[in-house]
């Protein structure tokens, strides 16, 4: 064990161990340049990374950021609490329609400022999450998967069938945050991705702080317990239903927020963006990056969103390649690109080893990376 640990110093596992050994302020300090770089990416438009001339680069980056936010929300449900949700696009749709209905000139409801609809979208989707969760969260595993899939389909079909939601005609002129440039043009327009990118990234950072704190709290520990073994968690006194409902509600709220943001950014919303295929794509982003790992799911979301934008000349072939890529990836790295951080489980193992008296100090993730690395 010790020898394998030494040989693994240069692997990602080793980097992760070193990262975990840094103190909190040190981690913050190290993150500052990364965050700055991320903020300025659409302005820099790096030559190798650029999606021009196929897709406007800032727009491609907004797409990636929006998908990253969706992935963070879905990760709470799938990665943290282990609830398989195949209808996540339903929440996304609810959020998008809240924003569209309350800001577009074409809807008959009262108009609100766009920024005010963001929290409102979160509240409404949270309610939708609770409404869906209350009857269905007693189901396990694959039954939950099919019910959530059904929910996604129902939302999509209602968007088509309810006249007030305008079906395929949709809503044009969805609102946007206020503000004009010096020349009087709008700061937040559908054509310029950069301000939207900054807005979404800022919101993502806030969400990451929030979700990260949840992860480390009692709630997060309960989620991990439920994910690993629901019956055992229940027996140990974890109110599993309550925490599953929380996971659903929080995941839904984040989905709704991203829906509202997408509606505002594109400035147009109709019923064509909510098919099951999108739920599947979101899930693919989460699993690809590494379900349960916040950084991982963002990387996964970036890949899923970036590749079609970058290689539009592949046009039809991109989905074929994407599908094959998923298959190959799962064969060689079933836990995703970056596996889940199992600090909690690792601590349990440490305690166990101390108890049996081997007195061996293992780094927090070495056992995990040993499992994963051994296969690759």
């Amino acid at each position, binding site marked *: 064990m010790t020898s394998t640990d030494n040989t693994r110093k240069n692997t990602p596992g080793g980097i992760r161990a070193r990262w975990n050994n840094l103190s909190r302020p040190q981690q913050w300090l190290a993150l500052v340049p990364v965050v700055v770089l991320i903020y300025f990416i659409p302005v820099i438009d790096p030559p190798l990374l650029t999606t021009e001339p196929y897709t406007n680069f800032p727009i491609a980056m907004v797409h990636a950021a929006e998908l990253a936010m969706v992935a963070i929300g879905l990760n709470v449900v*799938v990665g943290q609490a282990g609830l*398989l949700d195949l209808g996540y696009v339903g929440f996304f749709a609810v959020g998008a329609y809240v924003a569209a209905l309350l800001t577009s000139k074409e809807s*008959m*409801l*009262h108009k609100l400022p766009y920024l005010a609809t963001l929290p409102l979208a979160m509240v409404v989707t949270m309610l939708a999450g609770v409404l869906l969760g209350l*009857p*269905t969260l*007693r*189901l*396990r595993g*694959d*039954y939950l*998967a*099919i*019910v959530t*899939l*059904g*929910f996604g*389909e*129902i939302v999509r*079909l*209602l968007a*088509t*069938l*309810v*006249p*007030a939601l305008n079906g395929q005609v949709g809503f044009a002129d969805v609102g946007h945050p206020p503000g004009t440039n010096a020349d009087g043009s709008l700061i937040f327009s559908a054509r310029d991705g950069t301000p939207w990118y900054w807005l979404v990234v800022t919101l993502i950072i806030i969400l990451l702080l929030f979700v990260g704190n949840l992860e480390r709290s009692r709630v997060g520990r309960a989620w991990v317990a439920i994910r690993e073994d629901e019956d055992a968690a229940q027996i140990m006194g974890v109110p599993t239903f309550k925490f599953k409902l929380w996971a659903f509600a929080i995941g839904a709220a984040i989905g709704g927020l991203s829906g509202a943001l997408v509606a505002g950014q594109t400035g147009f919303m109709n019923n064509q963006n909510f098919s*099951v*295929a999108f739920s*599947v794509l979101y*899930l*693919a982003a989460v*699993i*690809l990056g590494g*379900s349960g790992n916040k950084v991982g799911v963002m990387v996964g979301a970036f890949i899923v969103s970036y590749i079609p934008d970058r290689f539009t000349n592949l046009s*039809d*072939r991109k*989905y*074929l390649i*994407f*599908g*094959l*890529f*998923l*298959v190959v990836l*799962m*064969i060689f790295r*079933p*836990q995703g690109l970056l596996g889940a951080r199992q600090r909690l489980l690792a601590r349990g193992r440490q305690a166990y080893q101390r108890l049996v008296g081997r007195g061996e100090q293992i780094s927090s993730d070495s056992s995990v990376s040993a499992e994963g690395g051994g*296969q690759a």
Partner: protein
Amino acid sequence: MHPLTVFLADSSWINFDVTSFRQEFWDNTFNGLTFGAIYALIAMGYTLVYGVLRLINFAHSEVFIAGAYALVFTLSGLGFDGSVPGLSTLALIGDMLLACLVAMLASGAIAVLLERIAYRPLRRKGAPPLAFLITAIGVSFAIQYAIFIWRGASAEPAVILFVPKALFSAFGTNITNQQLIIFVAAIVLMLLIDQFIQRTRFGRGVRAVAQDPDTATLMGVNKERAIMLTFLLGGLLAGAAALFYVIKVPSGVVFNGGFTLGIKAFAAAVLGGIGNIRGAALGGLLIGLVGNYGQTLLGNAQWSDVIAFVVLVVVLMFRPTGILGESLGKARV
């Protein structure tokens, strides 16, 4: 009036058309049973694989659509097209059986290949269940878009086998030969599969692996072969379903046409109790019926999906493992 009340009161989108529901009740029943039989055949594929591997085989809808393509190609090769063929009954049946056989073989081959290439390596590694699901999704995407690149976005030209003709009437509606053929043939196929699983040596092997793979292996059951057999059976049934589907919807063969059908078939399998063959049959028929009733009652074809899923959710609330429960593994020797 406050706009919100206008918005909420604008409920013209939902109106119950009870008169036509009453008038067309039996019509809907027979049509629903016909569609239900098709769902049931596809649902069998989901349920067999789930019963043995605990895996939602998302790519099963693509196994089905591959069979449908093979069927359409065979039929156009035999000279069928959008016009009504002037063949004798015997020749027609012969052609249909040939095309059905080709479709079944194509679907079966795709299903077995899928198992060999995509799922077996994962099983060897003991990958987590989510990895299987993502693989299934990946395969589903790959097959769909491989067909898309090959055949384009538009549906294959319609292939008409025969014109539905009223045979006799019951409850005030005519029952056509089309409905009767699909329903009876599907039921016969399902009974065959059920008996195969219940009575034969191979079927016993499948049930043993479903119940406890390790013990089954120790008892001399070839686990890999049993798993392959379930995929093959599911594929064969999907191929047969492709024939019935094309008879019912002659121009419905399109690259993503399997997806929605697959979702409904999967819902049917869950409704009946996933892993349970008889449950899949029951669930399929129920989904077909409920969808057809809902469509007439609410006056729009798209409501049929909404109603199907609402029924699924309601049933699962009261019977969390489906109507008949999961039981492929529960041996009744």
